[in-house]
């Protein structure tokens, strides 16, 4: 096929390639997105995906016989990082455009040579454990609420006790099973012609093939231990949770309300309308509560079941339901009557500007393209420049319908208590 300036093609190995020409900045961004996330962790190995992400950055051998991945990228004038989510892992690099051949060679090399030593696995597991520790109470709140509104869902960081048991063999088995060209998208955005990108990708990634034994062709989800929510929210009528009798420790007395968001893969429109709804509420109708849309405040960062989190005031001794009443009333008001057009326009404008800011960075564009291609059906792909348009199209009636949907979706209402209480 003839690649378009912005287009997608597939190598005969199954690897999908998305390219976008972004002339004028002298930069190129490469994002390798793999359908391997925390939800793929094996039973008893929570954090394996996160650990494998770390192991994809081989460090230099003693005294520099073979420089590490980060050092080699930096020597090419670039920088690199990675993120493990529940449904995918993405490795992203940005560098001067003329470094692309070297970058692609490095990217392919770490895929082809993945064979971590036992000592490396131990040291990286310690690094991951430290990341989990540093994430702190804020992350534990998010994870508790996630599991409450989406039973069985869990974060991708990992569990220290389980990470300690992950061996080099386990990591390599996970890699062989999940890191496969037919489960990955490579995206290249920048100051390089798409045809040249394709030539380079075919040259460097032609040797990355799925295991010949077919052991992982379907790569089904493995059975894993059911995740118990620390909040233990019993579900009542219509799948809507009632308040939890269990309080979570937190930095202050408060109430947390978690709402399950619409599935963007089933329709980007209803999901985006909920994003606008939450911004309308955040701007002027939240009764003092802080409103966060998407896991850790990032919406569309993955396609895994997502949530909104609202943190409101709760007086010492007050019941969670009582403290959440103002917020739920504000939501019900919008469900009953659409907001003014001005309110929706303001919320959408703020969100659109944020979309444009994020989409301006080559690395962020590459990551967004990769996620869209890997995780979303073609008709609902949230490509970098399409989301802003979808936001602008949201009407007051859409926002009201979004409020009705949010009220009808699973939610959790949980008291948070200061540790000193």
């Amino acid at each position, binding site marked *: 096929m003839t690649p378009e300036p912005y287009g997608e093609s597939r190598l005969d190995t199954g690897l999908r390639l998305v390219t976008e020409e972004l002339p004028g900045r*002298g930069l190129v961004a490469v994002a390798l997105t793999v359908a391997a996330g925390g939800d793929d962790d094996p039973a008893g190995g929570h954090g394996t995906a996160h650990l494998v992400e770390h192991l994809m950055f081989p*460090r230099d051998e003693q005294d520099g016989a073979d420089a590490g991945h980060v050092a080699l990228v*930096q020597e090419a*004038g670039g920088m690199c990082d990675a993120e493990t989510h529940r449904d995918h892992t993405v490795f992203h690099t940005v560098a001067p455009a*003329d470094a692309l051949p070297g970058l692609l060679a490095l990217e392919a090399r770490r895929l082809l040579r993945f064979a971590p030593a036992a000592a490396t696995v131990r040291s990286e597991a310690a690094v991951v454990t430290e990341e989990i520790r540093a994430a702190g109470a804020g992350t534990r709140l998010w994870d508790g609420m996630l599991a409450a509104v989406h039973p069985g869902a869990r974060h991708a960081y990992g569990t220290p006790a389980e990470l300690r048991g992950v061996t080099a063999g386990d990591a390599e088995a996970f890699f062989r099973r999940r890191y496969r060209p037919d489960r990955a998208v490579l995206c290249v955005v920048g100051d390089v012609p798409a045809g040249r990108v394709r030539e380079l990708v075919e040259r460097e990634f032609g040797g990355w093939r799925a295991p010949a034994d077919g052991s992982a062709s379907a790569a089904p989800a493995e059975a894993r231990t059911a995740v118990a929510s620390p909040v233990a929210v019993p579900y009542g009528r219509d799948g809507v949770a009632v308040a939890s009798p269990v309080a979570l420790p937190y930095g202050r007395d408060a109430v947390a309300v978690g709402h399950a968001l619409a599935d963007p893969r089933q329709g980007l429109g209803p999901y985006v309308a909920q994003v606008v709804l939450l911004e309308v509420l955040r701007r002027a109708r939240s009764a003092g509560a802080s409103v966060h849309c998407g896991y850790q405040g990032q919406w569309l960062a993955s396609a895994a079941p997502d949530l909104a989190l609202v943190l409101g005031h709760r007086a010492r001794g007050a019941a969670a339901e009582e403290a959440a009443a103002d917020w739920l009333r504000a939501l019900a008001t919008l469900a009953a009557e659409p907001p003014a057009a001005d309110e929706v326009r303001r919320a959408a404008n703020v969100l659109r*500007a944020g979309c444009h800011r994020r989409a*301006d*960075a080559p690395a962020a564009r590459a990551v967004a393209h990769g996620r869209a291609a890997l995780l979303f059906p073609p008709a609902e792909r949230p490509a970098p420049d399409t989301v802003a348009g979808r936001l602008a199209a949201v009407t007051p009636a859409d926002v009201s319908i979004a409020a009705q949907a949010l009220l009808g979706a699973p939610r959790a209402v949980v008291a948070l208590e200061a540790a000193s209480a």
Partner: protein
Amino acid sequence: MNTLTPALLTPAPREALRRTLANGLDTVVVAAPGAPLAELRLVLPYARADRASVRPQELVAAGLGTATAGRDRQAVADRAADLGAEVSTVVTAEHLVLSVSVLAHGLPGALRLLADLLVHPVYEPAGTAPAPAGPAAPGPRTRLRRAQLRHAFGGPHPLTEEGDAGGPAPGTDALYAFHRRAVVPRGAVLLVLGGADPDRVLALVRAELGGWAGGPSGLVLPPFPRAEPEPGRIALHDPAAGQALLLTAGPAVPAPEPGHAALHLAQLVLAGHASSRLTRHLRERHGLVYAVDARVRQNRAGCWLEIDCVGAPGTGDRIAREVADCLGALAESGPTPEETRRVRRYAAGFARFALATRAEEASALAGFVAAGLPVDWLAHWPAALAEVTDAQVAAAAARFLPPGRTLLATLDTAPAQEA
């Protein structure tokens, strides 16, 4: 000339229109065709004037951009949202930067809102809560920073002295008086980057901000008493610090003077990226530090080469010793050709990231202009790096890195044995 670096694909500098308006505002309009957002950066000189002005200066910075005589906080927020605009302020040792990022069609409205915020500000009275008994104690890093600069460059100087003088919160009269002094066009820089025609943008700036008057404020950092840092070793002790800190101050040459590019490359061989000597030696080999960096710092007060390390409690002496050894080795023998090749490439690529997004580009370009550099300074930086020879990098290391010319300052939980 040794040009080991491959020719880098260097983007052409953007078209820029620069004019000084009748009110003294240095205005730069940069064309970014097709940009969905316009970026505005207003850079005001904002160095600390005197101790008594610290509180009004802080409160003006916190309140600027939030309310006007005709619009309260909510109305300003609503107007900004109407335009798809985000307004923010950042204060540095030298400047207050007011940033506006706005949907392209909202640029005229954003300039009008900006003028309203500058010309008709409203500052709310301080709360009725009793004033704190005194200023909060500075943290370990701030104390080490002040000690480092005081020893290296002498004092008194705004960068080496205590901050807030304490006492009751200033009234709104003091805030308006400070606003009239500091938030003025003469001496300030306004940069607008966006897709609109630059001449049209300049006309809009003239129309909306032409009535803004005053200045210059004189809020610029004075030079340090000494131009060259005084070498030596100082050690602070704080059992509650929780970690060991090291800051150095060595001689340096600022941009854009000749010799800066060579020093920058020598400094990168020392620290600043994954293959730098200090990174490999202190962090990778010995696990002695959590973080290590080095950079040439420059402002109107002076210029110095600074190494910045953070390590475990009790390691301050050892870190200082290892850093001195690395400085000495690099000054004496110079970098290897391979090290120089690596840092050339790294430096050229990394400079490009300052322009990776239009928001970052606007901030970088406004910063260059405010620092007295040409607006297209960064576009010529890769070529300047490529022209530096390996011998010049070695000469820069020999001249600027000897430990005998460097101040090593540490703060640790245990008293130092070697200071």
